[in-house]
């Protein structure tokens, strides 16, 4: 995910330091290790139990008659998707992908300047980078569905609210990943650009962008994958796309139609994931 370390060190033939030898384990340290291990397990299981109690976990419910009957009925209906319904959902399906594409692109473009402001190797002034990161973290704490709900309340029901939600979500994700990639680039070319009399923008154009661009594109594609999946459920809060129809069919207990939507969504998401993963592998 991050740029590989520069191979200069290896190329210069510098002698590698001898591997540090750990002191041979004594009986004491072995005993200590065992206690640490035990304590870790106890804490781990303790946390799990507390959480089970918190969510009223009832494992018997999984095997109760009611659950078995419901599951059997719903699965049975879903096994027979209503393909005649497919012709009705192409339009919202396309809209879902359009929401994802527009949201990703606008968010990614907005992320670029902010990523540059956040990266301390480009913006050593803390007075800029720290507030920029705070804004970024704030944006990232808000879940995409919450953004969608807010924008539906502000701009009304529809795909536009969904797109705006994904703009914010993509912005946060792309900016965060990109500024981390920028901080990991080789500082050598930046030094060379400074020495040749470049100003800050020229330094970014010739030293930073050529190094960070493949990572940026890779993150944008990854964000697009996540966004297609997110766009599929945005409709549950009224923010357009296929989710609205899925919600309607589930509420009217038309599991055969819901199944059609789920299968088609799955195919689209898989296709986009496959294409995107292929492209990302080509990029890096």
């Amino acid at each position, binding site marked *: 995910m991050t740029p590989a370390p520069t191979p200069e060190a290896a190329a210069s033939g510098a002698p590698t330091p001898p591997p540090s030898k750990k002191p041979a384990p004594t009986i004491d340290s072995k005993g200590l290790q065992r206690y640490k291990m035990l304590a870790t397990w106890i804490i781990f299981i303790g946390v799990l139990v507390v959480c089970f109690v918190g969510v009223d976990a009832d494992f018997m419910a999984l095997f109760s008659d009611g659950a078995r009957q419901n599951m059997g009925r719903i699965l049975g209906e879903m096994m027979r998707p209503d393909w005649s319904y497919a012709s009705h959902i192409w339009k919202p399906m396309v809209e879902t992908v359009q929401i994802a594409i527009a949201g990703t692109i606008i968010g990614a473009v907005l992320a670029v300047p902010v990523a540059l402001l956040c990266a301390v190797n480009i913006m050593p002034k803390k007075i800029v980078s720290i507030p920029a990161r705070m804004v970024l973290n704030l944006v990232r704490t808000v879940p995409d569905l919450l953004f969608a709900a807010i924008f539906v309340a502000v701009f009304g029901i529809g795909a536009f609210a969904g797109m705006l939600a994904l703009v914010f979500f993509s912005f946060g994700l792309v900016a965060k990943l990109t500024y981390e990639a920028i901080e990991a680039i080789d500082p050598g070319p930046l*030094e060379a650009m400074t020495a040749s009399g470049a100003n800050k923008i020229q330094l970014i154009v010739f030293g930073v962008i050529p190094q960070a661009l493949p990572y940026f594109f890779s993150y944008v594609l990854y964000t697009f994958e996540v966004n297609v999946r997110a766009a599929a459920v945005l409709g549950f809060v009224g923010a357009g796309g296929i989710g609205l129809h899925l919600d309607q069919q589930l509420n009217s207990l038309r599991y055969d139609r819901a199944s059609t939507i789920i299968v088609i969504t799955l195919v689209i998401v898989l296709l986009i994931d496959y294409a995107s993963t292929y492209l990302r592998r080509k990029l890096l």
Partner: protein
Amino acid sequence: MIEFKNVVKQYPNGTIGLNNINLNIKEGEFVVIVGLSGAGKSTLLRSINRLHDISSGEILVDGKSITRANGKQLRRIRRDIGMIFQSFNLVKRATVLRNVLSGRVGYHSTFSTMFGYFPKEDHDIALDALTRVNIREKAYIRADQLSGGQQQRVSIARALAQKPKVILADEPVASLDPLTTRQVMDDLQRINRELKITTIVNLHFIDLAREYATRIIGLRAGEVVFDGPVSEATDAKFSEIYGRPINEDELLAADAPKGGVTV
């Protein structure tokens, strides 16, 4: 061409990097700076183009004070100083030509360089610089496809594309094998002689220093302890600079026989 006036560099932790340096380097000289690691060679070199700031004193480059220069003035002076680094500092994913062209940015406005556009004359200058270091045919290859010696020549070409008056080279051959070391040093020497570019090189191989320099400056603990022509830089003098007898590994000849190397 380059004048050091009472230059002192003190690090924030109190360590003295450079202690009252006074030097006057004339146009066309090929100066080699020698000294143990930590003696201040790199600090001295990097203070010339102000990659490092000095604490007091003044450095003049071609009559202009780089110490007092700011913003655009500083970038103007830096444009006239090409720099070559130990680790080449190329953008590895970019083509050779792109790397060399990046040396031209100091001549253009921010706006025209923002989209990576360069006029045809710049392409000619870049290709010319590559021809001068004998790697014109590599122009359209990605920099990371080249060997270490070839990458260092690309970085020399990038410095040349600046049309500099001065070239600074900070341990330019420390990452290279003996054969490519000579090729790179020969390139630097030829450029110094043909284009009359004042050249200042940090080296730790003392036989290379003697072979290529017209003038040797010895640094020890941030002070100039030797400054003179090669003929005066005897083994005894080097021992003085180093504070001890010369080691085998301070001679390139120890790595490979000098006579056996062809360029």
